């Protein structure tokens, strides 16, 4: 997906495109797993869903070495200052993915204890809904963020079916993804 673009830009394009490509391809996440979403985040980093193919298998414990903060889980009143502190310690450029409904809006916990949306505390780039969002949703949000990093705006949904035609089949109790053969012209970038 990015390589054709790179080749095209590498030969003729600007340094800025290359920097953006590098940032998107190797953004490291800061460790901010709070609750149930953290388990799904770790599952996404594990072998079955593998974030390493997006360059993100490394979860840095120190926020100084991180680019993306994935706020995974519900943020309580006691945790909000800690969240802000960790965000402030990250170096520019930095992005935030708000994973799960509790981080995005407070989720099902509309009460005294939970901050109603982590965007009350830090600026958020991508919201991933779900309770908890499955690994596919999280990967989709990460790819959206990568597009945002690379192009500076949220990518439009492709019309030629890159997200369509995926069927799930089961074999031996394990889930295997099978893709329908893509129509010709699929995989090209959006208009």
């Amino acid at each position, binding site marked *: 997906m990015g390589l054709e673009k790179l080749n095209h830009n590498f030969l003729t394009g600007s340094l800025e495109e290359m920097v953006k490509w590098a940032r998107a391809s190797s953004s490291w996440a800061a*460790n*901010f*797993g*709070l*609750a*149930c979403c*953290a*388990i*799904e985040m*770790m*599952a996404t980093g*594990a*072998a*079955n869903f593998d974030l390493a193919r997006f360059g993100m298998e490394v*979860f840095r*414990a120190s926020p100084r070495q991180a680019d993306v903060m994935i706020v995974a*889980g*519900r943020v*309580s*009143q*006691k*945790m909000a*200052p*800690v969240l802000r502190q*960790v965000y402030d310690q990250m170096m520019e450029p930095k992005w935030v993915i708000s994973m799960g409904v509790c981080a995005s809006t407070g989720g*099902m*916990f509309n*009460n*005294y*204890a*939970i901050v109603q949306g982590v965007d009350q505390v830090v600026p958020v780039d991508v919201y991933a809904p779900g*309770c*908890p969002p*499955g690994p596919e949703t999280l990967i989709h949000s990460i790819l959206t963020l990568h597009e945002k990093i690379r192009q500076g705006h949220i990518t439009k949904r492709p019309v030629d079916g890159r997200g369509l035609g995926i069927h799930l089949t*089961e074999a*031996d*109790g*394990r*889930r295997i993804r099978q893709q329908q053969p893509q129509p010709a012209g699929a995989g090209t970038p959006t208009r």
Partner: protein
Amino acid sequence: MRRTTVDQLAAAEVEAHDEQARTSEGFQEMVPRAGTRAAELRREAGSVLRIPEGVTTDFGDFDVDVAEDETMILNLGPSHPSTHGVLRVMVELQGESVLRCKPVIGYLHTGMEKTGEELMYHQGSTNVTRMDYLSPFFNELTYSLGVERLLGVEVPPRATWIRMLMCELNRISSHMLWLATNGSDIGAINMLVYGWREREVLLAFFEKVTGLRMNHNYIRPGGVAADLPDGWRDDVLAICDVIPRRMDDYDRLLTGQPILQERLEGVGALDADTAIALGVTGPLLRSTGVAWDLRRDQPYLAYEQVDFDVIVGNYGDCWDRFAIRFNEIRESVRICRQIVDMMPAGDYRVQDKKVTPPPRSRIDESMEALIHHFKLYTEGFKVEPGEAYVPVESPRGELGCFIVSDGSSRPYRLHMRTPSFANLQAMPPMMRGALVADAIAIVSTIDPLLGDVDR
């Protein structure tokens, strides 16, 4: 054992320290050693809890009576690279040995007990299932058992056995995650990847049955939400074949490993009297030699009809806890095989109009079914006044739901007695005299889950 008494230090020094210790989150500091009351000092050393001779560290090895400037207070967390959640531990170190520690919790407090009072009884499972998010079926189970005790309904046998099956599979997935994170904390990082690989097999089955990988809202008052799908026997037997084979692999990988043995054997020893006095349950209690498992000693569901062993440790150290959880996975596989053979046919929900909605297909055909469904989901069902506490054996210990009802369709008070909340109290005696690296191993083998602790 010598102790500095409060009298020996000027009160002004204590006060000066208090002023410095005020933070933006409030005064959560550890009181200076000299300002600690004798009762708390005794508790950390264990004279109240009667540590037996020679079981824990020999206090003669290091100077217990240290001056203020020879110790350092270190803060671990709440955001730290361990998956146990947002736990903050303040440790007082002398060199590399831990003298005192204080767990500070509350960073994940969600007000679920307050939310539980606002939701109706059939919505309650969605709330409680997110407390101990690694073993959601257990939360739902204890909640549903409590509500059913108050209602006085008896769930059909098939529902009971389905619940048992899902809970034992959940136990496997929870312990598997524990193996993964414990390995990661100790340094065997590839265990992290292996543990999650096994979990995916189980989560795929959960998704097939309940529709969700986590936080299922499947076990509800009255039974379960849906019947097991066709072919479930093959799926469960496939799981029961794969998991033991992989456990043998991990056995070869981990059990004989000298590094793992050095890091876990003899570390964080806890004795039985201390554990019982602190209200510790689950693998932490069983590691001290007390053979207490609610599945066998106060059985619920249909555990009297299946055959399984309760794994008990000898020394109460981290190695025992590792071995107990490791083998509990094997025992759960054994139980699942028996359930596959013994699963009865029948309803998966109690056929009581008060609690169970009509089948969805009937809603299109019958006006009464539509009205029944509507009333059930908007007004809920009323539960007569009373209170019930039903404990179950979750992967972490005794998990119980205490419900007080007042005759309306919402619980008047919903309190979950969660195992990790009590088990964390065992941390100070276990950490006494440990090295900093051992402290991480100890926290890992206590297996606290902060959703469970803070609710």
